């Protein structure tokens, strides 16, 4: 009996040991990627992973960085904080990466922060939550625009149109919750009153109940905060109900996909967005135009679909790392310091200026307002 037990235990623990086999090679610079390629936030993780892969390939084809190749080691986090922590630990301890890109969502990023802070590995998150970089954490940066910037853009526009009472309709996930918090936080300073505060679930099939309630309020405009497909259903339901209020959305749906899903109901909807979706119509003088066109065309050639601004977050992260490695010696500490010294970096999400006080690096100019006209995204002048 004892023998059997011992044999069993040995089997189990040798199984565990298999996972500890390390691969040591100093040559390439290793970068870790944490992307939610499957699971609910896969709409973020997939373009991010694709973009990161594409960029690393490109950099290696053109001779790497200072003669050293980049190697991207990426793990799927499935949008799950627990898996993100495990994967981050694996990247640091087993793959010995010099920096990490991702994770895709704010929740996962918050979970991973203690891990990277303890290990001293720079992390560039692709998530938008303001909590990630406020307060500033030594090793944590991010490329996605803060929600607050998008909120300010919308509120500015509302004020310009002399609309002061709004209804907000946010999705009950991390993205919507963060947007809702910012919408409420910035309302008073912007002279906006929120007269209805409604929520919908990410898998809801019908939002007419919320919209009817909003119709019964004194709202002059509706702001809907969510990612596909919810806002498309909101747009359709609004059209179904014959709601005539101006409808604003978040940058979460600034993609061709939204127009495809919402169809005619998308017409006239306004939202703040990174410049990716309007790259073609930007003025020649726009400082970001070169980066944007490069990203959009490369992505389309590689993956036959339009690149979106989620992929752009990874583009920015890889390029920020590249330039930080070029300027320093490529060690984690040097990467971190050089990242913090980034000035006037013309990326996809905007023009980045990191400082010791600001690890998000963007201003509200990172967003432009766009609207749907004839099933195309147009700039709002």
């Amino acid at each position, binding site marked *: 009996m004892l023998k059997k037990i011992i044999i069993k235990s040995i089997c189990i623990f040798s199984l565990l040991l298999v996972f500890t086999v390390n691969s040591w090679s100093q040559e390439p610079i290793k970068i870790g990627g944490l992307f939610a390629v*499957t699971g609910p936030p896969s709409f973020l993780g997939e373009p991010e992973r694709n973009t990161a892969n594409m960029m690393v390939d490109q950099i290696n084809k053109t001779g790497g960085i200072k003669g050293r190749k980049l190697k991207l080691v990426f793990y799927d986090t499935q949008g799950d904080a627990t898996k993100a922590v495990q994967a981050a630990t694996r990247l640091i301890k087993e793959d010995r990466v010099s920096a990490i890109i991702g994770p895709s969502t704010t929740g996962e990023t918050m979970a991973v922060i203690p891990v990277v802070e303890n290990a001293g590995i720079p992390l560039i998150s692709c998530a938008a939550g303001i909590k990630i970089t406020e307060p500033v954490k030594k090793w944590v940066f991010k490329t996605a625009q803060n929600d607050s910037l998008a909120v300010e853009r919308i509120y500015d526009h509302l004020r310009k149109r002399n609309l002061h009472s709004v209804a907000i309709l946010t999705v009950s996930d991390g993205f919507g919750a963060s947007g809702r918090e910012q919408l409420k936080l910035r309302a008073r300073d912007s002279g906006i009153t929120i007269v209805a505060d409604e929520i919908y679930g990410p898998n809801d*099939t019908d939002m*007419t*109940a919320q919209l009817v309630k909003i119709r019964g309020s004194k709202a002059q405009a509706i702001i809907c905060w969510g990612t596909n497909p919810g806002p498309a259903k909101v747009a359709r339901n609004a059209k179904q109900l014959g709601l005539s209020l101006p409808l604003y959305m978040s940058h979460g749906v600034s993609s061709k996909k939204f127009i495809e899903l919402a169809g005619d109901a998308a017409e006239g909807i306004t939202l703040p967005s990174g410049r990716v979706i309007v790259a073609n119509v930007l003025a020649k003088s726009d400082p970001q135009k070169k980066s944007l066109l490069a990203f959009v065309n490369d992505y389309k050639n590689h993956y036959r679909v339009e690149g979106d601004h989620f992929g752009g977050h990874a583009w920015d992260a890889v390029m920020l790392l590249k330039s930080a490695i070029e300027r320093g010696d490529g060690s984690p500490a040097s990467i971190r310091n050089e990242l913090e010294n980034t000035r006037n970096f013309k990326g996809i999400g905007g023009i980045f200026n990191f400082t010791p006080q600001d690890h998000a690096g963007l201003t509200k100019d990172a967003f432009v307002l766009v609207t749907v006209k004839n099933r195309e995204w147009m700039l709002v002048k």
Partner: protein
Amino acid sequence: MELIEQLLQYTLSGLSTGAIYALIGLGFAIIYNSTSIINFAQGEFVMLGGMLTLFFHVTLGLYLPLAVVLAIAAATAVGALFERLAISPLKDAEPIILVIITIGGSILIRGVAMLLWGKDTHALPMFSGDDPIILLGAAIMPQNIWIFGVTLIIITANRLFFHHSVSGKAMRACSFNRIASRLVGIDVKRMILFSFIISSAMGAVAGIIIAPLTMTSYDVGVMLGLKGFCAAIIGGMSTGMGTVAGGLIVGVLESLGAGLISSGYKDAIAFIILLVILLIRPQGLFGKGEAERV
């Protein structure tokens, strides 16, 4: 006056969502009644219906009615295959084992769908345009009429099948007493296969007619499945009006709850009703009073 108009809209919206839940719930009830299995993969057939139609119609460019027929056929084939490969070999397994198997099946089907068609959400074109129909100031979409109509047809067909056809009666007999059914010469194994075929076809039909309205992606099956489930339990696992009423009740209360109480807790409403029903009337609102005691 405005409140009445609002209430009307809530009710109408609720009824149209409820009809969706009811359709999905019926699929659960059919399998449960002939096999006593709760098929957690039921929601995936709803997804398959939508995604397959999309594939045949949009990707392959087939004429919509043809695409619909093909989609139902393909989803049914998947259902039959699942029963043959995973359920049928385990005829005498504990219920809990079967629950796990259907959960595994659901994960597998979802995974394959994700690999085949990607993770994007897609919209199927509406069957009859997208101009809303106004009823006493409340608006619904023509697609909702389709949903109501198809639900009605399916209930009628169910009723006719289970109460007036030989196979239907045999299936009901299986649910009452499997051994006795075997003794009187009913091929129980075939009846179980049958029930999987019918319910996967019904799931697919549900998925197809709701796809233009709710849109579809590889993972829509989970939440729709759970809600359909609630509908079936509340309706007492009946294969007829009980489940339909259960679905409509869940839909309307959700909609009223979202409109009048709090939209944040909307999803909780279905499950709270479920708990309350289970605790005070486990045989369902419309089930016959045969609560098991011993």
